[in-house]
């Protein structure tokens, strides 16, 4: 146990020493502050702590639409753009060199010559690297949690689900980095492969999602035959997508866990309708929530964790067998 704490403490010290850690934390704070600066009053809403305000029929203090919008800004804009896009890239860049540096000659000997199993060292080092994302997302989400209380007047702990979900997405990709860097000892190769898998997952998510929508949720001009023809293609896309980590869907899984207006589940349909206002045609929006929730949580997170587990097992096996 002492060795595990020592390794985790070392990981924390390493992250603290990285400039990118502080830069990311600074940007997270800034984004959180911007989020906090959004307010609602009797007539509408304001930005930058009341510096800019405008009237709005739906988004007013005390309205349930205001809460939907406020949570929607977090789940639909900040989380996908900042936390699961930019922060993850910065996180990968910051942590990709951890294993190559650790495995370099003259450095690895200091840890492997101790009475600690290699597997324990490997796994603790891996978990220690996830601290980057945990600290970044954790602090940011806690800020959002307090902002919700301040602006909406209620505590909404369900937003904290974004911490483990974002951490999961980062861990899938970091498993790629670890496997590649254990094999090649190249930081650059690790980042490139992780981005490649991430891009592949993004493409396959789009392909599988669109095929699902076309085959199951859209009328396609009443062409039922075409829908039937698309179903085998959809099944093929599912087979391909199954082996990849579901980065986007893992984050979207948060929609099912977040509470809005006292009810569990964030509706993208309602949120989009609220944003579009009078121009919204509810018929066009129908099926969006079904499409987002087309796959079960077990499939989304379970298969992604299997992907991560396979990669980590291979990396761990190589790490334990290797001569340094």
């Amino acid at each position, binding site marked *: 146990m002492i060795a595990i704490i*020592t390794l985790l*403490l070392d990981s924390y010290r390493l992250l603290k020493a990285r400039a990118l850690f502080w830069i990311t934390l600074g940007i997270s704070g800034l984004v959180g502050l911007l989020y906090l600066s959004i307010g609602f009053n009797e007539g509408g809403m304001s930005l930058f702590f009341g510096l800019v305000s405008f009237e709005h029929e739906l988004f007013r203090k005390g309205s349930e639409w205001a809460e939907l919008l406020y949570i929607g800004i977090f789940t639909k804009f900040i989380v996908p753009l900042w936390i699961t896009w930019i922060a993850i890239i910065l996180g990968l860049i910051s942590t990709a060199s951890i294993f190559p540096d650790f495995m370099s000659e003259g450095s690895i*000997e200091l840890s*492997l010559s101790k*009475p600690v199993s290699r597997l324990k060292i490997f796994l603790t080092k891996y978990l220690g690297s996830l601290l980057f994302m945990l600290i970044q997302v954790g602090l940011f989400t806690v800020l959002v949690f307090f902002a919700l209380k301040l602006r909406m007047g209620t505590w909404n702990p369900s937003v904290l689900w974004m911490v483990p979900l974002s951490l999961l997405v980062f861990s899938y990709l970091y498993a790629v980095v670890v496997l590649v860097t254990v094999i090649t000892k190249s930081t650059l190769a690790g980042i490139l492969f992780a981005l490649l898998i991430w891009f592949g997952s993004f493409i396959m998510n789009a392909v599988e999602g669109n095929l699902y929508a076309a085959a199951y949720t859209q009328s396609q001009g009443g062409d039922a035959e075409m829908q039937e023809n698309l179903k085998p293609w959809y099944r093929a896309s599912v087979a391909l997508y199954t082996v990849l980590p579901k980065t986007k869907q893992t984050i979207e899984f948060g929609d099912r866990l977040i509470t809005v207006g006292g009810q569990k589940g964030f509706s993208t349909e309602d949120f989009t309708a609220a944003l579009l206002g009078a121009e919204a045609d509810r018929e066009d929006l129908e099926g969006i929530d079904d499409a987002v929730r087309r796959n079960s949580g077990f499939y989304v997170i379970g298969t992604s964790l299997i992907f991560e587990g396979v990669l980590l097992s291979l990396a761990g096996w190589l790490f334990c067998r290797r001569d*340094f």
Partner: protein
Amino acid sequence: MEPPVLDLKHVRKVYKGKVEALQGIALQVPPGSVFGLLGPNGAGKSTLVKILTTIIRATECEGEMLGQPIGHKPSLQKVGYLPEHARFPDYLTGRQVVEYSAGMAGFTVRQASSRVEALLELVGMRDWAQRKVRTYSKGMKQRVGIAQALVNDPKLLFLDEPTDGVDPEGRREIREIVKRMREEGCTVFINTHLLSELEQVADRVAILAKGALVREGDLEELTKSKEEYEIVLASPLSDELVYKLETLSAVVANGHILFKGGDPKQLQPVIDFLRHHEVVIQSIQRNRLSLEELFLEVVEQSRNEEPT
């Protein structure tokens, strides 16, 4: 008699590409001694130490360390190790490096704090302990490296090129630390190229060449095998005296008389002979093979024995 701290019966390592780094090493290291492992570059010295500290996996391994089979992880709690070209994370301070080593050996910061302080003092790094490793010179890093190797109060200490990059004063201090560790009952296993350094502290040495153990023994015994007396004369000897001296097993060359062997009793007839013939003796010196000469001789021999 206490059992050896290290009792290797057969250690063999073949790397990928069929490079045989160690050809079945067998050696014993007695407890409380300073053991020097010598060998030219690529002889397999570091490979052997890395096998013993579980950093490299042996192809074949039979033997014990601290009474446990080689590779037994818990026994490493009583082993200290300073690797060659040790690289410490530059984001840590000197004290944190030593504390990291203590933590990995199973000691909390609180348990190790007094020993960490004492060791930083011992290696002369107490005033620099709060500074980041990246600000250290190579010699300072090596001092911190020795402190981290000692933090778990080891029974067996491996030092791989401990004086690498260290100034003469620092080397002397390291020698003193090694002697002190021996006095405290710790067995010190040193890999080094600096033979003169080792000669001053080692009790036993082993010489590796191309992965094979070519000589092993007590340093005193090994160097004694080539002992001789050198007598320097004030003037050259006549041919007749040279001839007579040679019958007494002495060799005369360039006004010097060389007499093989370290027994002073056997030298007395030669001195008596010279005094009897009124030869002026300028000096008599007892010569012993230095460790460096022994090393070079053994390595040269092993090269000559290679199949062509």
